[in-house]
């Protein structure tokens, strides 16, 4: 009885802390650049010492069905477990898991930026090396059948080794080296042994990270409450118009699926919209507009830009996995859940806003032989375009603030622990 009461009290405490903090969380970069194009821009920056947050009950998110999404699925050998989630969460924020101690998963999948990166188009990793692609969100990543934008990976457990080893991401020297880093860090002592009954190894490192990622489920959005929860006031009229267009005239739902019980907003398949084609074969010699300060722009010759830079890399999408010419420029349909938080958009981050994405679809993508037949010029007036945008803004999960606050707390724990336990990298 006493235990039960204590549990209830603890849960109540948890809930109240989460509610209090979730309100304070800004789901956008703490360094606000809205309206930066304009000379009227003013800052609205947050103080980093106040990025504190509070731990959340991630196990419940990993197991509970949220309105609008199916119940989370977990592999038979990696069932949700609070200790494993906590361990994965610790690993996700650990900057020591990179060759020079500067990159954690969270440096590209930034919590308040939709667990993506709002501040640049294509990620950069180890020593500033460029990646070809925009960092996608980790929210709801457990619902994808295949991972990465070219669908080259199949489980989250395996996926983690790509960034850990990629020379332009975390660039660890070897799998063994990652394991050694963890083994020699005092603050990991006993954690793997308790969670997995094993010392850290290639498999359980992936399992722990995957457990954390699968707990980042974020649905029960205004849209979900409206369509599946029976709350007819949850969407504005404009958003309802947008929904009608989305499933009707604009044809978005052909790829970004909405079911009768749940909506993943993805068909899990790959299509070419023409963006990749454009980069590979389109005109790339015209001058570019460069912003120098709020309201201040200049035009720069391509040659001048290239004197100090590398060329934008081609991205042949799915073709790079299969080498089948029919797969050129195909990318997996991303879920649109929480899409309002994850600008800039598309595989290369080349479209800055949801409005620019809608405009892109309105013109029918980029015409080429492999363009998906489901994409064609759309007859959408300005109001209709705005309605589509407003609809996509209704897809933000109502617990995202709680997940972000939890992530802030994880990062603060990291700073505290790592200070006590620097990794021993002494010479042999």
């Amino acid at each position: 009885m006493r235990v039960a009461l204590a549990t209830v009290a603890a849960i109540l405490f948890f809930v109240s802390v989460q509610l209090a903090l979730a309100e304070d969380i800004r789901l956008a970069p703490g360094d606000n650049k809205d309206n930066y194009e304009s000379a009227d821009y003013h800052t609205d920056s947050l103080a980093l010492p106040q990025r504190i947050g509070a731990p959340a009950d991630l196990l419940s998110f990993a197991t509970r069905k949220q309105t609008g999404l199916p119940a989370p699925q977990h592999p038979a050998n990696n069932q949700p477990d609070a200790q494993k989630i906590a361990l994965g969460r610790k690993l996700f924020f650990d900057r020591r898991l990179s060759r020079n101690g500067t990159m954690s998963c969270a440096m590209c999948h930034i919590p308040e930026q939709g667990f993506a990166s709002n501040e640049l188009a294509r990620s950069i990793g180890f020593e500033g090396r460029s990646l070809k692609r925009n960092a996608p969100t980790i929210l709801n990543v457990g619902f994808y059948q295949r991972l990465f934008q070219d669908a080259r990976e199949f489980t989250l457990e395996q996926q983690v080794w790509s960034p850990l080893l990629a020379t332009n991401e975390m660039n660890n020297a070897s799998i063994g080296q990652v394991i050694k880093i963890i083994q020699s860090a005092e603050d990991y002592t006993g954690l793997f042994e308790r969670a997995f009954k094993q010392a850290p190894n290639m498999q359980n490192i992936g399992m722990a990270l995957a457990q954390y990622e699968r707990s980042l489920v974020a649905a029960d959005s205004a849209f979900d409450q409206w369509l599946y929860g029976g709350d007819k006031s949850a969407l504005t009229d404009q958003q309802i118009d947008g929904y009608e267009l989305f499933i009707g005239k604009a044809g978005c739902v052909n790829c970004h699926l909405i079911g009768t019980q749940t909506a993943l907003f993805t068909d899990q398949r790959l299509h070419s919209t023409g963006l990749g084609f454009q980069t590979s074969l389109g005109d790339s010699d015209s001058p570019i507009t460069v912003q120098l300060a709020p309201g201040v722009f200049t035009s720069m010759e391509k040659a001048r830009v290239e004197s100090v830079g590398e060329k934008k890399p081609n991205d042949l999408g799915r073709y790079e996995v299969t080498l089948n010419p029919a797969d050129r420029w195909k990318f997996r349909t991303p879920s649109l859940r929480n899409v309002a938080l994850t600008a800039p958009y598309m595989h290369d981050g080349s479209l800055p806003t949801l409005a620019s994405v809608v405009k892109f679809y309105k013109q029918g993508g980029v015409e080429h032989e492999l363009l998906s037949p489901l994409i064609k010029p759309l007859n959408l007036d300005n109001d209709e375009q705005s309605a589509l945008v407003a609809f996509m803004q209704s897809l933000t999960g109502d617990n995202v603030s709680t997940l972000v606050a939890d992530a802030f707390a994880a990062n603060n724990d990291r700073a505290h622990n790592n200070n006590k336990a620097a990794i021993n990298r002494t010479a042999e």
Partner: protein
Amino acid sequence: MKQFTTHTLPRILAIVSLVWASAAQADETCMSPYMAKIVGQEDVVYVWTLGEEGLGDEQDKLVTIDVNPSSPDYGKVIHTLSVGGRNEAHHSGFTDDRNYLWAGGLDSNKIFIFDVHTDPAKPSLFKTIDNFEQASGGVVGPHTFYALAGKIMVTGLSNSADHGGRTAMVEYSNTGDYVATHWHPTDQDLRGATKSGKYADGYGYDVRALPRRNAMFTSSFTGWTNYMMDFGTMLGDPEAMKRFGNTAIKWNLHTRQPEKIFDMPGAPLEIRCAWQPNHNYCFTTTALTSQIWLMYEDESGEWQAKAVGDIGDPSKVPLPVDISITSDDNGLWVQTFMDGKARYFDVSDPFNPKQTYEKVIGAQLNMISQSWDGKRAYFTSSLLDNWDKKGEADEQFFKAYTWNGKQLELEFMVDFKAEKLGSAHQMRFGAYGLYGLPRPWEKPANASAGKAASTDAAN
């Protein structure tokens, strides 16, 4: 300009700095007024050098170059000290006693503290600080190392929460112990500062002090994401181009509190304060908008900031990077990276700078260090590893010039690529006289110090 008057608080500081200033002729003019000075000719220049993939041992190193024309090794690299890794070597600065040179890595956040007093020709690694990010509470990118009395103020460029531009200054003791983190004011927490305009971005870059006015100034650049990114890629990324600092801040030197935030659009970088006791002003230049800005104390004792001139054609983005003020405050050297030019501005009227001279130093150009008498100026090429030019234009050099007031004359250069050293960045001067040591080549032949130095010189 307002005449210098002694207020209560700055009085003690003013006296201290005057004592030092009168103690000797200083070396380069960009140093802290708290610092011990070199008498006369500098003997060596320490070049904090970035390791380059595919070149030599591929890692960052401190390169020591003999620059004393009377030395048998004049013009030669006499010592190199590799530190491991490509840390994004950038700036360095001495402790006030000038015994140690602190050099930072903008990427790895390591700070290497070199002993330069035991043998100025052969610096040794005294200590490495490798918990800067954790100790400071999340500051990333140790940039400027600025000597205060018994302390080193380290400016950060970024943070480990989002690798953006919000950051802090981190204060250390001379022996490398963490003292405090001073966050730059943001809208959420102005920390008592006043916004004079629209911005409180919380960004940082350089720091300089004017002790007699109890004032400290900081400028603002960009976070890790941008300074580590391929430069061309960043220019083509509209999101990234929004992430530059647009502010400079006047701080209370004594209390370390920010007092006034100035709007200064387009990434103000290096700050150089005037030396003359009645010159209460500092210059800075904005990298992206190519303007010279003056922060000055007005008639009523209030600090103001004003754009006082353009550098080249701002629409072409010449990218002014390092600047250096002459010790009489009459001249300001401004280096523009994109066209490789050193430009001399007459700033005898600080409100009306006039460019009077320019010379192309190389295909790209960043840093300058000039002697106190202004007769010698040294230049290096590298800006940031991923911002430097690509291909042939990626010249990497150290060039020593003399300046007669009208012309720069090249005395010698060290080709950092041919010598397989890396990319040459910041320079600091060293001299035997500072530590009461004789110059080795002026000593009797049997002295051991002389022998060590000449053995060294063999490479």
